[in-house]
């Protein structure tokens, strides 16, 4: 699914555009532990988190992850946006909480059928 469609589904604001707005997203992984994000991140993965520090960009860069989604309207550290720009990772923020964000993304990606990504 195109990143654009997922951004619309959660009413997110794009703080830092990635390499292409038409990026294909196949999976979403949500978490607040860097180790867990690192293990699950990869090409075609959107990481959803309430963290907002520069290490998120580092994880995305190392694992070729195209987009970071911050929940709860979290304001990112300016250095996170700089680092994300350098490695062409998109950063979006939405005001919804983690549960609601994940629910909407899941529905959009997989419909009403339960499917573990």
């Amino acid at each position, binding site marked *: 699914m195109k990143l654009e469609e997922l951004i619309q589904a959660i009413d997110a604001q794009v703080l830092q555009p990635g390499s292409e707005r038409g990026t294909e997203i196949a999976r979403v992984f949500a978490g607040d532990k*860097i*180790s*867990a994000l*690192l293990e699950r991140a990869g090409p075609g993965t959107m990481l959803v988190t309430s963290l907002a*520090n520069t*290490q998120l960009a*580092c994880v995305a*860069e*190392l*694992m070729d992850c195209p987009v970071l989604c911050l929940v709860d309207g979290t304001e990112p550290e300016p250095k996170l946006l700089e680092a994300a720009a350098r490695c062409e990772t998109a950063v979006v923020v939405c005001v919804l909480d983690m549960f609601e964000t994940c629910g909407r993304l899941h529905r959009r990606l997989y419909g009403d059928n339960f499917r573990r990504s």
Partner: protein
Amino acid sequence: MITSCFSITGGKFDEAGSASRRLKEQLKQIGVDGQIMRRIMIAAYEAEMNVVIHAVKGNLWVRFDDRRFNMEVVDQGPGITDLNLAMKPGFSTASAEAKQLGFGAGMGLPNIKKASDQFEVDSQVGKGTRVRSTIYLETQSVEQPTGQGLFVQAELCVGCLDCLKACPARALRVWNQRPLILSALCIECTACIEVCRRGVFEIPDTEINQSEESVSEVHTLVIPRAFLTQFGSKIPPRVVLAALRNLGFKDIRFTEEWERELRRVVRRYAAEQKQHPVISPICPAVISLIESEFPSLIPQVAPFMTPIQAAVEAWILCSATFVAACPSQYTLLERADLSGRLRIVNPAQLSARILPLLKARTETAPTVQKQSVQPSRSGKNGQAVLEAWGVNNVVEILEKTEKGLAGDFQVLELGCCETGCYGTPVFEENPYLAQKRWSASGLERLRPVKAVPIKSPYKARTGMRLDADMSKAIEKLARIEELTAGLPGRDCGACGAPSCASLAEDIVLERYPGLECLVS
């Protein structure tokens, strides 16, 4: 082979990840991609963050070729009190600051282990921690080849075939005046180096290919003391020692420090054992010989590391330069040095560097005084210790031990070279002269060190399998036996194989085209 070192500063979360990012750039250049890159990045980033979170500073060392990626992350920090606990998912001692940033989930070490094909963590409380990871870039067997400690200059060979007869492991062939080592059989003793008058076999020259930031840290040199006795009667060991210090080595240690400690602990260990003799792992080539040719004796080998391995263990947290006195030491150092953090030099390289310094400092050597240099034949409390040198003696004694004919000795201290490392053919001086020169030098002081128990048991080597498929291997074995029976049995070596049975095996396994018996 590419070796790199990236420095990591503890506590600097803003800069964290830069070592892993730089590493990724390097790996992309050689075409590492996909799942393998993921695994390497997980291991590297987790290890780097461990340094940032817990330590003052550290280095991420990597060494890789097209087959494997080796990484060592060494830090100066508080160390880990309980390694088992640290390996438990969820256990963390990270600070509140680190936890606020999303670290401290207690998944660091478990994640590195999961991403690695081989993983090891060592720690010294109050000093630091070393994490090692190996990730294979291509599928390969777990068996580690030997023979890598020997470099063959085939163009020097005149086809005299002396090496064929000297090799106790029947690992050599000379085809078309070109010697070839069958690495699965080679035990890395020094027999071929010793016997070859043309200098075909030698320890490889090591490429010194470290990044600048690492070089300043290399300041300890570990050498066999025989090295100091190689410069003739007019240059005594202490002058050589001074010249080595002038090269910039602040500290110089002798492998004999670990050898002496090993002798002590093995003798104590032997006194507690019911089965005798206990074989002391003094010489790595003897261990290799036992693993290949005398596997039934493996339970009798004392479970300690060889002196050179124990010496490496003393530098788990910092860098050092090691002089390899023989191919087997070279191989062990290569294996221990997963990341290129240690420097391995061959004695000739080091000699070449200090010769100009020595020429300027020639002086009259003290007269060698009469004193006994005979090694003791018995340990404490009249313990029967048999020391024996030379690969032929070693083979004979191991054969007798296998038959139960050496039970009157408690400990066997066996070495493939005459008088131990003094006798390695890498050194030119006569071993007895060298040994005497050392004992007269007054430099006998050896510092106390620790013997190190082995981490995994010594185990039999499978050697050369005739075929991966057992039924085909049986067929091949039958053909080898049939062929051998038809050969003259003179084991003359004219065909380039050390024996008629070896020739039959070479023919069946098609190791070289056009092989045949030149006599029958």
